[in-house]
């Protein structure tokens, strides 16, 4: 036994060492890319810098603010005034002999590393929860036989080494910071740090609006705890422990509820606390914003320029989404209708998913993020980087996902073809807007398949667990 433990600890240490080398290597890789001349022109790629995340626009906003104009004058800057006061000075400051964007890039690299660390910590929590739940279901055997992968490390490494993340980080887009806010919220919720979770959620909502729907997974996470298998199974298990003979589900349920040590009941206290903290933080953030935009157009202008810009899709410059071309082509009198339809598409799926996946709030958050990054007005690869990182958390559960190879290869294909088509259309003039739009449509389909398949795989995994417990129960009975 001791030898075995030693071996396992050794292996663990080895694994740890390997993990840190990979992290260091990824940081080094980023730094090398930063020092490339002209930043490899990544900062002007449509995949990287959308009107919302472009650092160039932020610099313009900062310049306008410095020349005592509203940063929202004109239609250049659409980001947060807080980000402006955080990153703005760095766009101007220069270190002698270093690239001009060095300071900003370093901020983004730090944000990326922080993201990776938070993903790792959250992943480890999730894994512990997963192991515990398997143990409590008496399914240790499968966990051992399946050799549970350390999903936290995998997710962190996937996040760090994902080309999308690297490009978004080196390409000077503010999406690493937006991602940081989202991950902070999820981390806080997983670790049951209510103020942190509330802060993350408020910041994420403030920065990019779409994370507002994450309030549901965060509350579920705070209420139920990290992802656990289905409640019903647990009830059955407890029911079995309590009363072997009876199989009346109603009685079982009552008994389960009566049990005080059962953690699987929705905990209202942290949820309420979260709401309270969220209100406090949003008041605080609004106050800060109000102070910084007071002498210009006030908060209303900020809302109009940030959220109005997101919701009305005013900028039709190409990006990896589909809405820009749609709204460039659609007849003007249908515009508002389709704006409603596309935003409703995000909102309509919130409740069905929440009902079905309420026992897996982290996975629910992942699905929400994927959906919003598919249908948002100005998607960038930074959003994809985030959900790919989060996908690493569920590497055990989603091991049986279908089309994974297919998805992977089409991802590679699209991310190679899309710049080519963009180049043909914009730079060479030999291609046509439809070529680029075709890659965007493919990309949207891809994310759609990813969402559908991952949800389906997760549900299947739950079914499998249920089946196994049922079989165990039957075995136990017989």
């Amino acid at each position: 036994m001791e030898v075995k433990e030693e071996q396992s600890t050794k292996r663990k240490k080895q694994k740890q060492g390997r993990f840190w080398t990979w992290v260091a290597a990824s940081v080094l890789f980023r730094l090398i890319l930063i020092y490339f001349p002209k930043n490899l022109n990544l900062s002007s790629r449509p995949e990287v810098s959308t009107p919302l995340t472009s650092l160039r626009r932020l610099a313009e906003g900062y310049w306008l603010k410095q020349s005592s104009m509203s940063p929202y004058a004109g239609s250049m800057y659409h980001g947060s005034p807080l980000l402006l006061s955080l990153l703005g000075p760095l766009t101007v400051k220069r270190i002698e002999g270093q690239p001009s964007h060095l300071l900003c890039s370093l901020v983004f690299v730090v944000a990326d590393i922080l993201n990776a660390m938070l993903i790792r910590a959250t992943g480890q929590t999730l894994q512990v929860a997963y192991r515990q739940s398997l143990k409590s279901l008496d399914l240790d055997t499968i966990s051992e036989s399946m050799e549970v992968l350390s999903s936290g490390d995998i997710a962190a490494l996937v996040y760090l080494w994902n080309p999308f993340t690297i490009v978004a980080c080196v390409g000077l887009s503010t999406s690493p910071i937006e991602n940081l806010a989202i991950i902070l919220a999820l981390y806080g919720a997983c670790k049951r740090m209510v103020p942190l979770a509330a802060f993350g959620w408020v910041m994420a909502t403030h920065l990019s609006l779409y994370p507002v729907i994450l309030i549901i997974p965060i509350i579920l996470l705070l209420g139920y705890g990290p992802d656990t298998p289905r409640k019903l199974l647990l009830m059955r298990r407890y029911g079995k422990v309590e009363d072997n003979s009876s199989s009346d589900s109603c009685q079982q349920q009552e008994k389960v509820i009566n049990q005080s040590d059962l953690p699987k009941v929705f905990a209202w206290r942290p949820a309420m606390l979260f709401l309270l903290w969220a209100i406090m933080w949003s008041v605080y953030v609004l106050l800060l914003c109000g102070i910084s935009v007071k002498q210009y157009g006030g908060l209303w202008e900020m809302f109009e320029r940030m959220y109005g810009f997101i919701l009305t899709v005013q900028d039709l410059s190409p990006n990896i989404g589909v809405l820009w071309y749609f709204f460039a082509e659609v007849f003007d009198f249908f515009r508002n209708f389709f704006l409603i339809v596309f935003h409703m598409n995000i909102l309509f799926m919130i409740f069905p998913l929440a009902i079905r996946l309420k026992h897996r709030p982290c996975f629910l958050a992942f699905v929400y993020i994927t959906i919003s990054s598919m249908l948002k007005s100005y998607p960038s690869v930074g959003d994809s980087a985030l959900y790919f990182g989060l996908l690493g958390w569920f590497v055990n559960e989603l091991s049986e996902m279908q089309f994974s190879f297919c998805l992977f290869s089409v991802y590679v294909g699209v991310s190679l073809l899309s710049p080519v088509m963009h180049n043909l259309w914009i730079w060479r003039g030999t291609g046509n807007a439809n070529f680029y739009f075709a890659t965007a449509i493919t990309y949207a389909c891809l994310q759609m398949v990813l969402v559908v398949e991952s949800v389906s795989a997760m549900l299947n995994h739950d079914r499998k667990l249920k089946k196994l417990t049922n079989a165990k129960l039957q075995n136990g009975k017989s």
Partner: protein
Amino acid sequence: MKLTSGDGDEVKDKAHDELDFEFLGNIKGEPILLQTNVFANGTSGREQRITLWFDPTTEYHDYKILWNQNQIVFYVDDIPIRVFKKLTESGVPFPSQPLQIQASLWHAKWASQNETDWRYAPFKAHYQGFDISGCPCATKQCMNECYGQNYWWNDIRELNSDQRRAYEDRRFHGGLSDSAPHCPNLIALSQRPYSDSSSFLHLMALPLLLLLRRVLLPSLSLTFCPNSPFQSCLGNGHRRRFLGGVASEAISGSQGAVPLQLSKQGPTYQLQWPAPPSLPQSHISAGRFRSFTLRKWNFLSHKVGGGFDPISSNKAKPPGVELWAVFDAPLEQVDDSWKNLTHALSGLFCASVNFLESSTTYSAPEWGYRPAPGSLRYGTLPREAVCTENLTPWLKLLPCRDKAGLSALMDRPSIYKGFYHSQQLRLTSSEFESEEGGSGIVLQQTLTVVVQPDSERNVMSYSHETKLQPSWSLTSIFGRMVTGRCVLAKSSTIYLQFDRGLVGQLDYLQKENELSSADKSVYEGFSSNPGFELSVKPDRVLKELNGFEKKTPSVVYEFYIEKYSESRPFDLGLTWKLPVVWSCQKAPLHASRFLMGSGNERGAIAISLRSTEVSDEFLHTDMSEGRCKLEVKVFQVVPWYIKVYFHTVRVYVNEQPQEVSDVVEKMRVSPSVDKVSPGVMEMVLKFPCGMKSAAITLEFDKGFLHIDEYPPDANQGFDIPAAIISFPNFHTSMQFFTDKSVDRSSILSKFQENNAVLAYTEVLLVPLTTPDFSMPYNVITITCTVCALYFGSLLNVLRKRVGEEERSSKSKATKETGRLRQLLSRVSAKLRGRPFEPPQPPSNSSSFISSKLILFILVVGIAVFWQVYFG
């Protein structure tokens, strides 16, 4: 025939049909005008006048009329001077009755240049040497005989080649001109009470112009001025030579390497008539001060540099329409006033000025263009083409249209043949001193034309290495002459300005030739100048006052048109006697603008300023800081789809990057708002004096437009309006040594206006990417399909539990649960599942249908919602 020497003679035929030689009365010493006339069927009005090329009082000359059934030809010394073809098929009457010969003296008050002095009466005429060949015939029977082959003149159908050459020579050199049916109409017009000016008010759609209810007599003046900006038209590296005289200018290769030799001249018509306001103030609030310009450049690529000339620097502009207005209205009404104005002007000038109505096309500069914060609006349409449709309404605003006065010169073909022409309308409400006193509204109309004298005929090749500049005259340029002033005009003057450089050259020439050492200089005598000769003696010579410069002053010759009439038309001409090469004064910096970068994603605008190095003596103007600085103002408007990053402004001086704050003294930016307003940049830069070149760069991203926002020729590109570079420390004013009579002529006061030197840069053409215009439906359907697919399949996955639980109970029996589940997890696998589970399809399809049903209900619900709230 010999005329008696005296104050007036004439020979006349008188009948119902009539063929006339009329010698018009004149002032002694002036060339005598010969008028020919053809009466047919009693209709007259076909007078033609010719300035005889000899003095008919000294010798006998032959005056012949050939009249057959084909034509009537008037000959003077066997040179045909007029051909009147028989065009009865076209409805032109032709004399056909038997004629007799009459010779008489005739008291023609209107045709003579002065009054008949009856003190010399009686007047006697003596005629000799009449020779008539004709067919005497009094009855209709002999008519056919007369038209037969017996008579030699019946065969003459056309002029022979020699005659034709002589005829053309006479007509175009001798200055034969068709005179308009003059007297009765014009006199009537002048007697019409002008105070209500209804004669042209009905032409105007512009409510604002209705303010001109009371119009004083217009002063109409024509100025020839060297349009110094034009000289830079032909680009860099060419040595410029200002050909003398009327603003004519030649550009040729410095060492004769470029065979191109062009000569241009820019007459400017300026019409001004003041009007005291007699309408309530509410009307005036519509606008106070506006300028509207339509321009056309014939050059494929042109560069407009700045110029020192007071008029040209205001008028040499890039192609298109430029409109600016300062409104008296309260600030919140300014935009509305602007919109009204654009619509009125577009109706008035048949131009698409109404496109300036959209807020994306006009801007509100604060000090970059003209100092008028808040109430100034400025808009340009760089692509607007200018054609006769725009000129006609412009001319209609003139009281005499193009029928009389200086505007009679505005012969459409010769104007549009020119290199550049610009028509400008400027309405000013200002205090001005008029006879009536008080303030009023002044409408100034300016037409600037750069034309090339017909060099082929005029250029004689000299033995020198340089060619003689082409000589010109009004007739050679416009094909017309000024036949007196418009009777409504208060004054009518033509100015001929000699540039400083030219005067200097001429002085130098004179000294070199040592023709007249001391007393005769270019500004005193015109006929004695060795360099050139004017065909008409100027009434006044004005010399520029320049106290501080050691340079030669420019000279302006004044010609009063009042003295001239139909009988004595004004035809100014300038003949070069010696080749002169000179360069005119240039702005301190030559401005040009270009685009950088490739592709349709982003780019940069660069404004490059090159020192012209000719005006070093001016550079001491701003010594306030102890260092010599050159102040430059830049005003740039960019349309919203050029998304300029103003923080990327870079300034390079002598190709070295400079700290922006070191050079930019003042900067005002109003960034563009998508689909709402254009971006405006106003800058004051201070460069060191010894600077050779400077450049300002600005990066931008190209915007993407909705398909409806693209013009029909979307791939042609979009225009960035010209940037305006001005030099606040350099002024265009020229002070002339004159008495107070200057006040009467607006153009001289224009010379003296203290305007900053302006330069317009090129209009830039920016290509933008285009979406596919042909497939909006495809895009909509494909995108919606993807959305529906996502929605449907996700809902399907989520909804699978019910069916799955039913199945799981059954699948225990079949032992195929795992495989089934796997299959069922896919939408596509539904059909494959059929053989395994026959009872399955109904439930599946029902679920599928119900999901579709939900989708359908949702869409219907949204549609209803839409209909209720927005429909």
